[in-house]
């Protein structure tokens, strides 16, 4: 699992949920929900999709580590390693 794989997966799953927002238009260090305009159901769907893709549990107690695009990518790198 390379960093590129993780970034690609994350980008694809975000595009599924927020097809109108391009990665180029957002600040990857800012709050993911604000940047992609996603609600709690969207976020749950994102976690569900990423959890299945990387075979991770992604518990709610880890949600604070998934606040921004960069943070979520870093979390996946650590967990999926």
């Amino acid at each position: 699992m390379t960093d590129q794989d993780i970034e690609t997966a994350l980008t694809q799953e975000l595009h599924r949920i927020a097809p109108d927002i391009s990665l180029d238009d957002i600040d990857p260090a800012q709050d993911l929900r604000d940047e992609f305009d996603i609600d709690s159901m969207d976020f749950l769907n994102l976690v569900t999709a990423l959890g299945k893709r990387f075979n991770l549990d992604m518990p709610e107690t880890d949600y604070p580590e998934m606040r921004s695009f960069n943070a979520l990518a870093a979390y996946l790198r650590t967990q999926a390693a």
Partner: protein
Amino acid sequence: MPSLGADMTDATLVEQLVSPGDAVQRGDIIAAVETQKGVIEIEAFEDGILDNWLVDIGTNVAVGTPLAMIREKGESAAAAPAIPDIAPPKPAPPKPAPPKPAPPKPGPPDTPIPDDRPRRRISPAARRLAVQTGIDPSTVATRSGAPITRSDIAMLTQNDRPPAQTDMRTAIAAAMTRSKRDIPHYYLSHTVDLTNAQAFVSAENADRAPDDRLLLGALYLKAIANAVVKVPEMNGHFTDDGFHQSDAVHTGLAISLRSGGLVAPAIFNADTQRLDDLMTSMRDLITRVRAGRFRARELSDATITLTSLGDRGVDRLYGIIYPPQVAIVGIGTPAMRPWVHDEQVAARLTATVTLAADHRVSDGRRGALFLNTIDKNLQTPDTL
């Protein structure tokens, strides 16, 4: 064409999912129509054999217009028109349909949601525009795998139609104008401590895979449905001949769309569903609505509405009742706020719950009991 909710008077037939001669069962999805709010699936009202289609694909017809003739099994084709009163006059009775050797089916009519048919991914706005302009989406070339967007369709049209968004806004405006004109609203507001409810959700979710996790929204749905049992005059329809209380609780859930606007389709029988089932229903509904596809009955049959601002909203909202319903419950964004708990000021998770209700049916005293009951239900989430 069944009723499509308070604000829609007509729709365009875009899919015929069963062929003449096919057996249909009550509840089968037999057609799809295009409306201002997206593609809506039409269910059969009764069991029988689809005799023939009365409306061609691409035709715009008013609510109440017969779409197809369904005859009961065993009857001859000419005998029993499904809706004899308003069926268009025919020059000659249709020939008795010969038993056809399994005609090819355009779609699986007996699956509840035929969404897994192989289909180009296309955004709801693009689908709307494609129907409006008569462009076949399958002819649109996009980057491989990318969904067809509205601009892909727009590039193929030479006219400058107003965007589909305008239609959605028109539909919302019509319903809300009717509501503000006809319904004497009264408004109540109540702050609710959600600390227990959130703790319950966190504890439940700790052992659950993401697929099975709960959201607070499911608890809101259940708390409201249970409160309706105590204050039933919040639940039903007000029509020309007065208020009709509903025994079942079909909770309309206001869902915002990324393309703008919102719809409030129903989660059926919210009062008898378990919490986990409500969560599944809510997830399924939101997914389908955001994909631009839902069912006519979901738009017309809601008996009360819930609108929740979610995690990124503001403190409080003032709802407008969706006619012919008589109440709408609004839940503001939960936040940590100072609150007196066990005689101490403490930081607690609270949210402001509002009610807009119809003064023709109830008054503030009953509305207050309703909000207090929702509050009480949310304090004991394990009993929901």
